[in-house]
């Protein structure tokens, strides 16, 4: 499968500050890829470089087979993007905002009537954009991203400002778009959203890529085993530390948190039983993307 987005040592410096530092990642065609990171991690700068709006200081980006920055940028006709806060002409109606973009991109205006219902904006499309709530602005910006029937959709915080029902609608829409074979690059600070939607994620911190992989891979990595023994806890710790595949044991109240592959739960249980340690409870230590994110970004 060829990649929809490839970045090679992509770097952006603003004076002495490095916004994006040698970022190398690859997004496959047809997948939903999550880009995570705390504020100022370089997510939006990365997106704007992919769209040719910001010139990289070093490295390169290839989007839909075209190297970004080599003018002109015909690949952009196949890309839909919503970047940060929605930018609209306040004196124009929602419909006319889309007309401006349709005209500029040479897109048939009939397409506007197709995308407005997709984001639930058909009823309010004739109102002035200046009167829209944040959620409606967000919906219109997503409609604008969908206008060119894009192969690649870049969405930066797409559910920002939406009510819970709206959030679910947009997540369903993202799933539908991905099911249609479109590639989606999703930036979000809502980690459970990324966990629900994305197959693979990359985590940025201070411009650097600190983790990349499928959500399952990241969550299983160093996930460990949770254990509750009855009786001599110290003996159990000694036995556990004797195992070559256990890298550490942490006592947390009555529980023992064992740094060992979660796939070896049954093996560990049998080993302790053989050595006459009564196991009251044992299982894989469950982790959320949120706890993993906080751990790797050091924001806890």
């Amino acid at each position, binding site marked *: 499968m060829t990649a929809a987005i490839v970045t090679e040592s992509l770097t952006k410096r603003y004076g002495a500050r490095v916004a994006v530092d040698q970022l190398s990642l690859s997004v496959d065609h047809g997948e939903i890829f999550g880009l995570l990171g705390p504020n100022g991690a370089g997510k939006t700068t990365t997106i*704007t470089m992919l*769209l040719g709006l910001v010139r990289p200081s070093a490295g390169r980006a290839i989007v839909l087979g075209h190297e970004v920055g080599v*003018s002109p940028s015909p690949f952009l006709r196949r890309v839909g993007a919503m*970047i940060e806060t929605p*930018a609209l*002409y306040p*004196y124009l109606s929602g419909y006319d905002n889309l007309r*401006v973009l349709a*005209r*500029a991109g040479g897109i048939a205006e009939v397409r506007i009537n197709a995308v407005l219902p997709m984001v639930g904006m058909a009823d309010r499309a004739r109102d002035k954009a200046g009167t829209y709530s944040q959620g409606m602005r967000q919906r219109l910006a997503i409609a604008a991203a969908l206008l060119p029937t894009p192969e690649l959709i870049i969405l930066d915080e797409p559910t920002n400002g939406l009510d819970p029902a709206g959030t679910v609608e947009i997540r369903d829409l993202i799933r539908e778009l991905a099911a249609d074979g479109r590639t989606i690059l999703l930036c979000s600070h809502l980690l459970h959203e990324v966990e629900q939607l994305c197959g693979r994620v990359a985590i940025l911190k201070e411009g650097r890529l600190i983790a990349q992989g499928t959500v399952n891979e990241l969550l299983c990595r160093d996930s460990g085993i949770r254990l509750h023994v009855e009786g001599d806890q110290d003996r159990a710790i000694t036995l556990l530390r004797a195992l070559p595949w256990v890298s550490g044991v942490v006592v947390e109240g009555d529980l023992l948190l064992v740094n060992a592959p979660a796939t070896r739960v049954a093996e560990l249980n049998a080993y302790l039983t053989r050595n006459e340690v009564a196991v009251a409870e044992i299982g894989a230590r469950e982790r959320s993307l949120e706890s993993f994110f906080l751990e790797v970004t050091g924001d806890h």
Partner: protein
Amino acid sequence: MITDLRNLIAAEWLKLSRRPLSWVLLGVFLGLMLLYLATWALVVMLHTGALIGGNTRFEVLSPAQIVELQRQLSVPGIFGAVLGQVNSTGGICAIILAAGFLGSDYTWGTLRVLLTRAPHRGAYLLAKLITLQIGILVTILIALLIGALFALVCSSTLGIPSHLRPGDLLALPVGVLRSLYIILPYVMLTLASAAFGRSALAGVGGGLIFLALDVSAGSLNTIGVVSPLVRWLVNLLLQPNINTLVVLNSQLFGLDQSVLLSSLDLGLLPSPLHATLVIAAYSGFFFWGAYRLLLRRDVVGAY
């Protein structure tokens, strides 16, 4: 490229024609133009006594100046007067319009969205410029129509005769195009200022400061009598060249600006060819500046 440009002009026209600022500026310009024409009409009425029954006359201007004013209030002279207004108060309105037109795309962050749909920045800037010139052209045509109606009113109330000959109609496109050409460098400089400051305010500031300096520099025209070298240098400034084309436009419709403006020495003004080339050079330089600023700088969010 041509298709891209056409698409962009269609998009920009939608924005310009729906923008309240465009209509406000059109109203302000037409209001000021009518005020100017009404003032001249009042002066003529006071001078001829038409206002108060012919018993009392206010002879502030010379008879030659009154004849010149009467020409400005009748067809075809009123076309010259209207085009003169386009290139004075209209220029200020055009600067504000151009600044808002480009600057707001920076301020609202819409430039970023537009450039993801139409990524060729040169085409975007050219489309802006062409759309602005179309907007100004429409304004000029409306102003000429209102001017012609005003001349009809003057003809019936003041008895100033109007004569529209085929030659005057043929002269109209020339005058209109020349007016657009005169405004061009100010529009270009405003676009460059808005791109430099990434805001409408920077555009208005840059455009109006330049206009004020340029008009002030126009008074240097008189020092051209010192020597041919000084005259040559002064004529490299924009204002004397603008004055040449403005005078040509008024002469096209039978007006003589020097009758009303005694300080204007037509003999010191540069030739039409010189004026055309200097204005083209200024316009080209300002456009190049705006293009380089737009091309080389990163486009980030709303400013």
